[in-house]
């Protein structure tokens, strides 16, 4: 019987990964669902495009390597995020952090100057947050992870994540307050 991978749950897709006939398509679907979010997380955590791509590729290869038919996958995005987080931390430890921080501050050429400006300011403000707050905020804002997924990746209660996120984003706003005071408040689209 033909399998509709798009309609399959994460748990089913993970199960298919252990079957050679379904492996390729199931992996494609998982990648389609979570690839962009994991990539955004790697980019924001590592600040360097090449390191981020290394980590991103390693994340999915490790994920593939770890597939086991005995494992019951309950939270696939959190599982992927955990692998990505470990990979990024390893890479962070291997490389000299200070030498890699500046690349993405130049922004992307396809964005407007104003969008670049606010994004760069946010990115710089993120650097000033405590590590756990920063990571949680990046997971939530850029990787679009839920509180539960972030809590699972960190191995902490959801209330702790909620606290980190509230404190982190409040601190972010405080840091960026001078920027907002310089220009009138604009409502987002």
């Amino acid at each position: 019987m033909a399998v509709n991978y798009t309609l399959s749950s994460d748990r089913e897709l993970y199960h298919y990964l252990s079957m050679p006939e379904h492996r390729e398509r199931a992996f494609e679907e998982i990648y389609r669902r979570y690839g962009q979010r994991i990539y955004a997380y790697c980019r924001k955590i590592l600040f360097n495009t090449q390191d981020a791509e290394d980590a991103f590729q390693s994340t999915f290869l490790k994920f593939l390597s770890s597939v086991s038919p005995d494992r019951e996958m309950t939270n696939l995005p959190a599982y992927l995020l955990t692998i990505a987080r470990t990979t990024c931390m390893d890479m962070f430890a291997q490389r000299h952090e200070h030498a890699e921080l500046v690349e993405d501050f130049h922004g992307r050429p396809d964005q407007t100057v104003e969008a670049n400006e606010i994004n760069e300011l946010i990115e710089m403000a993120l650097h000033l947050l405590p590590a756990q707050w920063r990571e949680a905020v990046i997971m939530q804002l850029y990787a679009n992870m839920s509180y539960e997924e972030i809590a699972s990746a960190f191995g902490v209660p959801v209330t702790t994540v909620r606290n980190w996120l509230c404190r982190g984003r409040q601190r972010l706003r405080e840091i960026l307050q001078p920027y907002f005071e310089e220009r009138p408040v604009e409502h987002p689209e």
Partner: protein
Amino acid sequence: MEQLSHRDMIDLFLDGQLPAEARSVFFAALAASEELQAEFHRAVVIHAAAHRHAQTLQPPPALTASILAAATPQVPASRARSGWLHAKALRTIALTAAATVIGFFIGRLSGPLPSTTKLAMQSEHAATGNAVAVQHTTTQAIPTSQNTQTAHTTTAQPKSTSPIALGTPSVDEDIAPLPNDALTAVAVMPLPTPALPVDFSPASPQPMPLPVGHTLEQHSAPLPLPPAVEEPEEEFILSIRQTTPLVLRQQRLLSPLSSSPLNNTLIAAEYRERTVSILAQCGYEQFPIYELTTAADGTPQYTLRQLLWWVGGGMRVYAPRAEEGLFRTLRPMAGIVLGTSQYGVLGRGEVGLSWEVLPHLSVQCLLEGMVHSHGIGTNWEHAEKLSASIGLAFRF
């Protein structure tokens, strides 16, 4: 439920996590406080900007393709062959070996001794007029009426070593292109007798006036030779180069470029005999390859290996040195190296330039391609790397 501050409520509301019973409290506070409204607006702007920016962060298509390729079915283990007998490794070795042999024969058959070497040998005889004759034969390709007249005059001295007197070829001979070994051929030829009659009669045209301050003897003295380009028969060359990867590719995985290109160093010791050399080379390179192994349950295991140590041997072919012009010191070169690393075997091809800036020092700029075949157990893969390098070579 724990007590939430109004500021906390902003974030929870934006995340859709604010409990229904707290919403009315939040809205009331928001309506009453301008400060809270301003903070809410800031939160919305940051939230929206971050989400918009996140949408622009898409993995490159090539990276996506390579990751998806990792899930493609593996070659059955029963078909895989291990170690040195693996077909891919053998193919790599065979290709590079064939290129080495071809390069060797190209180098050996690249022609007779370069004329520069002969010119250097001739310089020992520079005191004779013959060498001077070489100079003028080559520099005065097209005779004019003036130098023809001068020939009339100066050939009045039969023993004169004047180049003009010696070199009296016909016009056809003179404008004909010189053969490769023309210098040598002219140098060993018997000197021709003057072809034109000598006429000192007053009616004959006046000889060309000599430049002020020059006597006839000075004018007919042997001209100084340009410094001869000496190419040693054999040289020992020690070089060190720094490479920067341009493209890296694994058989089924595209690995992004290393972000630390300075960790790529090559050292080579080379023995050159004229235009062909043999060399031993070792390298320390960032070469992010993934070693693929298969777990007991059949799932592939990828292990990232970043650093590659390798040693190898090969050969290089240099273009013969030109006698003058740019390529007198700038010599194209090409080479090939076979080697082994801690993970497998490799073949390298390189092409570039060696700029001999000083008698014992060259600058080398090369474009290098490398194929590395690696693996553990029954699974072998290969990776390719294209890089550019620059370095110094010390010639002894």
